[in-house]
């Protein structure tokens, strides 16, 4: 599989010191920087870019990492064109400062120069310990923030390694493994404890931790069940969900998946970022043709503009205005193709996008040996979305907090980071109940 390994190399090398300083040189150094207002997690690009500009590189790294423990991953994955960079005042002149790339550069620079922001910080030593369920973006952010507040924290993770969606849901060509490891090492350096392979089976079991040595619980368990097309068979050989497909590429099943895809025709169903990721992975695994099947048109796709462009340029065939209506199988139960029905766009639906209307008598079949359903993620069986207050991440149960996708539904990593920070501060207040968090930590 050396060829697949090659194909999964990250495409964007990021800035080096010279290009980063040059880019920072373009920054207008705004008063009350609009970019900083545009970051959901409060990473504060206005400050870290100014620091970089003034040769305070270590300070710039500190700003990123203190504000956003996953600042590197956010720098890589954030749809900056509709967040910080959208607000950039330089847009009024020509083009925004490349804030995401600068943020990523600073985090990589910290690793390159071995400048560890949290080195030498005392380990959390408070009497009260917090349980964080899930080592994804929300859980890591909450755990890091708690540790910074001096509160001991244990992260329970069902899977063998940390990262959550960053590891098992984002392809390696977008977020290299070494990059993720660096970012998790920064969380560990704060003294956060991890227990892997430790699945907390239910919400009740999580809440029960309150009596077992934990004074508060944060639920950041994400959405790990793939939504599936209704009423369609699921036990077809060659038919996968996006969750299975992407996780397989990161957990050791890459060779087997590669064998199944190489030289074949792959149909990916869906129009979001996950569908685009699946399609691009299929291409990198050597698929002969990759079709992206979407029932609306290009403009209605939820995937980011740059992702759509990149997928098109790489050779993904966008098959728009087509609704999958069934799977064709061969006598041995293997996938042979996808039945499709053409659609046209009608009036707007509740999402504000024009509704696809099926055209009767337009059915046709696309030959494909592999199909990936990438139409959304939902809570795992037995769980619904958890209701929590957006201001403090409290749930109905005292001492239990929640954030990230399990509260919001599918959303951005940077908003999960925000929830983790919000919850940690709220937990600190809860633990002290009026006393300062620093005192509680002692």
């Amino acid at each position: 599989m050396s060829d697949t390994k090659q194909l999964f190399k990250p495409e964007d090398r990021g800035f080096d010191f010279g290009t980063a300083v040059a880019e920072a040189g373009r920054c207008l150094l705004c008063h009350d920087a609009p970019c900083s207002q545009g970051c959901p997690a409060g990473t504060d690009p206005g400050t870290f870019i100014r620091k970089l500009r003034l040769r305070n590189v270590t300070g710039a790294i500190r700003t990123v990492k203190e504000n956003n423990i996953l600042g590197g991953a956010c720098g890589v994955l954030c749809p900056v064109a509709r967040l910080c960079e959208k607000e950039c005042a330089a847009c009024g002149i020509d083009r925004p400062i490349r804030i995401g790339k600068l943020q990523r550069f600073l985090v990589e620079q910290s690793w390159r120069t071995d400048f560890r922001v949290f080195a030498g910080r005392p380990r959390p030593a408070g009497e009260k310990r917090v349980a964080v369920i899930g080592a994804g973006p929300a859980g890591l952010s909450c755990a890091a923030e708690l540790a910074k507040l001096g509160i001991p924290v244990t992260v329970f993770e069902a899977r063998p390694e940390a990262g959550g969606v960053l590891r098992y849901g984002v392809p390696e060509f977008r977020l290299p493994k070494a990059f993720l490891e660096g970012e998790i090492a920064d969380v560990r350096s704060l003294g956060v404890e991890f227990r892997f392979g430790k699945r907390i089976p239910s919400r009740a079991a999580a809440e029960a931790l309150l009596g077992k040595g934990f004074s508060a619980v944060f639920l950041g368990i994400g959405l790990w069940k793939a939504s599936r097309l209704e009423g369609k068979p699921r036990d077809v050989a060659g038919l996968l969900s996006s969750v299975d497909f992407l996780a397989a590429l990161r957990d050791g099943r890459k060779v087997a998946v590669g064998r199944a895809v190489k030289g074949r025709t792959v149909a990916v169903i869906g129009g979001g970022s996950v569908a685009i990721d699946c399609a691009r992975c299929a291409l990198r695994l050597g698929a002969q043709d990759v079709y992206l099947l979407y029932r609306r048109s290009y403009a209605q796709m939820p995937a980011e503009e740059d992702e759509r462009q990149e997928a098109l340029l790489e050779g993904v065939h966008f098959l728009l205005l087509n609704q999958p209506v069934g799977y064709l199988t061969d006598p041995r139960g293997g996938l042979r193709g996808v039945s499709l029905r053409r659609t046209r766009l009608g009036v707007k639906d509740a999402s504000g996008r024009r509704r696809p209307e099926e055209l009767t008598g337009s059915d046709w079949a696309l030959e494909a040996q592999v199909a990936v359903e990438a139409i959304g993620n939902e809570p795992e069986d037995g769980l619904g979305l958890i209701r929590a207050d957006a201001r403090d991440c409290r749930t109905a149960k005292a001492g239990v907090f929640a954030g990230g996708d399990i509260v919001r539904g599918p959303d951005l990593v940077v908003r999960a980071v925000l929830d983790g920070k919000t919850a940690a501060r709220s937990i600190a207040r809860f633990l002290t109940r009026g006393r300062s968090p620093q005192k509680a930590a002692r």
Partner: protein
Amino acid sequence: MEKRPDLSVEFLGKTFINPFLLSSSPVSNSAKMLERAFEAGWSGVAYKTLVTGRIPIVHPSPRMHPYHYGETRLMGLQNVEQTTDRGLKPNLRDIAYLKKHWPDRVVMASIMGFANQEWADLARACEDAGADMLELNFSCPHMTVEGSGCKVGQEHELVEKFTATVRKVVSIPLVAKMTPNLADMSIPALAAKRGGADAISAINTVKGISEIGLDDWVPRPNVFGKGAISGYSGPAVKPIGLRFIAELASDPKLKLPLSGIGGIETWVDALEYLLAGAATVQVTTGVIHYGYRIVEDMIEGLSDYMAQKGVSRVADLIGKALPNLHDTGKFDVAKQGVAQYDLDRCVGCGQCYIVCRDAGGEALEWDAAKRRPRQIEDKCLSCMICGFVCPVAGLITFKKKPASWKRRPTVTLG
């Protein structure tokens, strides 16, 4: 094709096809290199300084260091380069070669002696080789040989003596090259004139330290663990060079033609030197940064400027800024103005607000909702720093106020 303005200029009885020369440095080190420079369009050269073979010249290694400013490379350049290390004879053969093959270009041989007799010997040898004129190097700031370079330039008796020595033995014109590492350049320039110099060139490099290593604490360039205060050049020194040229050009006792040097990269820089009183200009650091090709843009740019301004001769530009150069005491401070803002083009960065508040008259308020500055006009100091930081060219301009206008006094606390 349209008629292009004639860029030729007379300097010490020679016709230069344009005012752009290479200065004495690594860019004028050999005939082989200079042939390419002449092909590119340079009108002449101050050939890399010659010395007698008495003391072997070895350059320190490394011999240069850049001063980058943010993303701008080579704002300045520091060097510990010595005079030529090629030996006298090969250089004299190269000078003869250039004069034979490039008769319309001017070769000015730069020389530096370490004693009277050496100055005389070098001068004669260069004249015999066919040099059109001599440049007397009284100004190198970092010679490793005692009794040479700018140590001479700072002692006006030596400048006069060495110039007179050379004057006695050759008939070709003499240009004395000055160091800027002194308070008043008129003193050595007048000494050179008394000794028989026909022109002055200025400036040689400014003594400086461009950078100090943060890990090894060695000033740069790091010559195997040692640094030195040495010659600093490039765009960063242009204001210093212009000052000295303007002062020499304004000196009623001097009245010698000038060759301007210091931070020239573009036709604009060159033109400023002409307007300040130089008849020719010399370039090194610009070539170290971009190569000989920059002369193409200097020629085209100056020629288009002259066509647009209706100026037919370079000579008509020389010293044209001098009538406008005054002591600050001559300013009419009764006339005042303010910064004015064309806010339709504002992008809302607020840098004007920050600097006005912290370094100006606190004359701006910030409308956070609209992200726009709001000027309190009678607090504006007209320092114009808001305009310096504004990213939109021409948004902030200076506006004259009527004589009746009064500025509010600065607030006093306590």
